[in-house]
């Protein structure tokens, strides 16, 4: 009796609604401390079986006088009788799925679920329907097994990882843009690494990853000191690491290529997106338009090479530029000084030797996943924004005829997708236009309230780690998921996420799969020989 183990009946339906959640009265002998928000629940209605998650837990009493005059807590006899009878627990359940019960028989195996028969819950079970904790089999039935298009991403919160795996529909996932969110330190990178390695492993698409903090291109160590292999180490033949600029300090990485960018590649909108980062004035931003109009394609190189002199006779002076473009000298001067920082980027050159962007494009076209490592500029916001925007735009423009799905991973997404710039940047375009060209985003961010709401609403699947700021929680749950607020605020601070969206039949809270379980083969049942082979491979590559 796997599906409906009667020992685990926890209560009955006593009220509630589809929109604000069902009310379940917890049975008087079931300990409230065994349950938590986010746990999976099944309800046995008369004709349907329902699935949902606990979205809130409340304590209530049948008589308000218990709140004013509660019994003495040291009077164990009285309190133990009252709790569960006059004072009881109500669980709020967010209903998600329903499946008709084909055969009402005692053979509970027949009450199993398969994918073709369940759908979203559009009605609710009647009063007093019994409620059970979702069993392992329930999870397997709903989320399916790992296969060519489904990847294991984690275990339901509170369950044993040896018993249940939550498998994501990766194919469906990458057809839309998605987001990984959470406060700093909650494990966004870990989850992203899982998603990327599964996509790569199953060859479902190609990834272009802008690795701002060298999280994916190099080995990292988790909290317990365990060594986590990089994507390159896991998939040496499928991943190319390209580094920005000359190789100075690359750590353990031996990049496959070095990326240089020409000034001429930069357009006005690339500068605009840097407005906040570089503290450009609005006047200055307007001036860039004039500069481009006047000086053409190579305006930036030219502008940066000008002399900051007021001498109008000097054709290379800012003063003469001011006159030519009709801008104020002071504006141009400020702009020039702020943009000077670009000159420090050694990867930014007038005439670079290679057409790096073409290089990237070629690799992607061949089906290689590209990780762009930022070298010495890692964690440099200006460099990150500049390079990411430029390269993305170029690749996107050229990806029209491609058949492969391209997934672009960006971090600090609110820099690229905040309300002010979302309508202008390439990222906003990609997010909105979705399936037009086979390019989607995987955005990683810790401030979802900083992202344009329309963009958020376009995301197919959201992976939400712990968030504290109410604005962040509200913005990420806007829409039909508002009743899951408590679920988000009770997430564990490390590597636990609420996953909701198209890639799953119903929302679920998962403990993210540990990164040291990432493998480069599909079959999780390794033989000793397999293990030996892998170890040999690794040794060959890395020494």
């Amino acid at each position: 009796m796997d599906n409906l183990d009667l020992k685990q009946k926890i209560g009955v339906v006593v009220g509630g609604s589809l929109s604000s959640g069902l009310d379940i009265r917890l049975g008087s002998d079931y300990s409230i401390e065994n349950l938590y928000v986010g746990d999976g629940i099944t309800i046995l209605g008369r004709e349907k079986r329902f699935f949902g998650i606990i979205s809130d837990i409340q304590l209530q009493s049948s008589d308000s006088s218990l709140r004013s005059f509660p019994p003495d807590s040291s009077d164990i006899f009285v309190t133990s009788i009252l709790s569960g009878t006059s004072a009881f627990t109500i669980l709020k359940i967010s209903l998600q799925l329903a499946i008709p019960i084909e055969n009402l028989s005692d053979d509970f195996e027949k009450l199993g679920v398969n994918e073709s028969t369940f759908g979203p819950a559009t009605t609710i079970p009647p009063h007093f329907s019994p409620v059970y904790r979702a069993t392992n089999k329930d999870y397997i039935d709903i989320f399916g097994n790992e296969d060519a298009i489904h990847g294991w991403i984690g275990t339901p919160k509170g369950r044993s990882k040896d018993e249940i795996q939550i498998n994501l529909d990766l194919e469906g996932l990458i057809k839309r843009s998605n987001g990984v969110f959470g406060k700093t330190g909650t494990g966004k990178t870990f989850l992203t690494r899982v998603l990327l390695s599964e996509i790569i492993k199953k060859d479902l698409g190609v990834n272009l990853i802008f690795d701002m903090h060298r999280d994916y291109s190099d080995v990292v160590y988790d909290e317990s000191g365990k060594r986590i292999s990089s994507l390159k180490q896991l998939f040496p033949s499928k991943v190319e690491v390209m580094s920005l600029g000359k190789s100075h300090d690359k750590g353990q990485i031996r990049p496959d290529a070095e990326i240089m960018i020409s000034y001429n590649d930069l357009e006005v909108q690339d500068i605009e997106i840097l407005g906040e980062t570089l503290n450009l004035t609005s006047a200055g931003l307007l001036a860039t338009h004039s500069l481009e109009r006047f000086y053409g394609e190579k305006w930036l190189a030219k502008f940066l090479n000008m002399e900051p002199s007021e001498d109008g006779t000097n054709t290379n002076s800012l003063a003469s530029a001011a006159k030519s473009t009709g801008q104020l000298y002071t504006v141009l001067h400020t702009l020039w000084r702020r943009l000077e920082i670009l000159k420090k980027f050694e990867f930014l050159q007038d005439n670079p030797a290679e057409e790096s962007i073409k290089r990237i494009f070629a690799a992607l076209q061949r089906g290689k996943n590209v990780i762009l490592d930022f070298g010495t500029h890692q964690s440099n916001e200006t460099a990150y924004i500049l390079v990411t925007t430029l390269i993305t735009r170029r690749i996107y423009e050229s990806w029209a005829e491609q058949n492969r799905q391209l997934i672009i991973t960006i971090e600090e997404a609110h820099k690229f997708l905040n309300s002010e710039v979302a309508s202008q940047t390439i990222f906003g375009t990609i997010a909105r236009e979705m399936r037009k060209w086979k390019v989607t985003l995987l955005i990683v961010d810790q401030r979802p309230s900083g992202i344009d709401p329309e963009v958020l609403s376009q995301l197919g699947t959201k992976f939400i780690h712990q968030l504290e700021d109410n604005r962040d929680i509200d913005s990420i749950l806007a829409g039909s998921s508002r009743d899951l607020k408590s679920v988000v605020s009770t997430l564990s601070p490390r590597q636990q996420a609420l996953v909701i969206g198209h890639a799953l039949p119903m929302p679920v809270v998962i403990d993210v799969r540990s990164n040291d379980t990432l493998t480069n083969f599909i079959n999780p049942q390794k033989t000793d020989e397999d293990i030996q082979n892998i170890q040999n491979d690794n040794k060959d590559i890395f020494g």
Partner: protein
Amino acid sequence: MNNYKPIAEIIESSTKSFVAQCYELYQAPKLGTFVQTRDDPSIVGVVYNVFTEPLDPSRRPIARGPFQNTQEKLYEDNPHLSLLFRTEVEVFILGYIDNSKKYKYESPLLPAKIHMGVSLLTKEEIVSFTENINFLELLIEGISTISEEIFSITIRTIASYRQDPEQFIFDSGKQLAGSFSHDQQKLILLLRKLGRGPING
């Protein structure tokens, strides 16, 4: 019909309760004791009031003064006194034993007859009668008649006869909680009384 010696005789009778006069003055079953009538069907109830009154209601006892002899001597010196009073018990009905010797936890449809004898239940019979928690139904309904204190004394007395006294009191408390959801403060009062534990003897 049982063969136990009758200790009292019914002098008032209804389907909810009855009053029995004890054969011996002051020899009455204590509060919370279980008794049954000596006929078929035998009606089972619990003693909720014990009182002694003059046979002639118009003759009220008058205090004889603090310098009278001790209690015992008073009755010896005035032997007619024990003839002028009677001790009675009021019994609240909890059910009856039907033709097939099964316990029915309901009101009998007809009251017991006047002058019918009343005898005690043995400890085993009390344990057997209270085995099924449903016996509490009429008792809980009757709290307004028998008082909270008697209810608690009854439960605690039964508990002392059982193998599992604490569990019995607990289960009774849970049943009570279900019936008193409208009046939590009264419930808490009742539970505190129950919490005093089994009564011995």
